[in-house]
């Protein structure tokens, strides 16, 4: 008889309908309108963005909406050097955590219009939005963040948000 089989191919596929939930839907709908909306915790007063309907440290529901600025401070970053499938931008490029003015946690986005070697913690950055007619319920409505040219933010202003 022929040799034993060593491997079998067993592909799987499952189709889902992902639901963003109430808080995330409000957030994404606001992004499509050019606004960044977080939620403030009634207990600890922290502003979370993107909002999740609850405060992850207090475990209570969050409802108060707070608009945060579309500019802020780079709290940390990494330089992506490795190409991977589906990559929209050729490496090397900078992925950054940006603490938007008014928020208590950072969001992730791209940092462009800057040499990767110049990326640094504390850099002040602003959003570069897509053309208005391309705004959609997605963080892709913001193309990337770029330096504002302001002096770097002092470490003390963001050290609690690392």
């Amino acid at each position, binding site marked *: 008889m022929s040799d034993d089989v060593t491997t079998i191919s067993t592909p799987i596929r499952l189709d889902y*309908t992902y639901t963003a939930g109430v808080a995330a839907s409000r957030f994404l709908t606001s992004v499509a309108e050019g606004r960044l909306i977080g939620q403030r915790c009634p207990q600890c007063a922290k502003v979370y963005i993107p909002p999740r309907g609850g405060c992850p440290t207090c475990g209570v529901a969050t409802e108060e909406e707070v608009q945060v600025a579309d500019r802020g401070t780079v709290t940390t970053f990494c330089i992506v050097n490795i190409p991977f499938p589906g990559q929209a931008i050729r490496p090397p490029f900078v992925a950054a955590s940006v603490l938007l003015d008014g928020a208590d946690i950072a969001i992730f986005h791209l940092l462009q219009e800057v040499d990767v070697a110049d990326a640094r913690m504390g850099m002040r950055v602003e959003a570069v939005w897509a053309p208005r007619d391309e705004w959609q319920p997605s963080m892709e409505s913001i193309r990337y963040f770029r330096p504002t040219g302001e002096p770097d933010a002092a470490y003390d202003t963001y050290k609690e948000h690392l």
Partner: protein
Amino acid sequence: MADSPRVLTAPHVLEYPYTRSVGPILGRFFGGLRDRRIFGIGARDGRVIVPPQEFDPLTAEALDEFVEVGSAGVVTTWAWVREPRTHQPLTHAFAWALIRLDGADTAMLHAVDAGDESAMRTGMRVTARWRDETQGDIHDIVCFDPEIATTAGGGH
């Protein structure tokens, strides 16, 4: 607060190609299917397990004595599918069945192309229908067909 916007949804597909290493025990089983033969394995108490298992279900010892079983056997239970779902073995109505092949002491799951629910009964004999070009996986058995009685009284 503004009126609640509609809740956003998006389609999401979870899809993986998966290639699985089968090991030597199932490797022999799938190699057998490729040759249009079915191998079970002997447990310590003498029972023949199909499909083969790596370890004895009662003593947990490693098993290694292959036993060839027939490609026909008896339906031990079944269920009739009026509307097959995507990727199920047949695209027209069929039966799932646990089938105890001749020489085996356990039953294996597969499909029976009985044509109509009225043709299905526990205890009926079925025989494997092989794929034209076997590849060494469970689909080498396309399905089972009701065995046609060849002699008077050979049926049930």
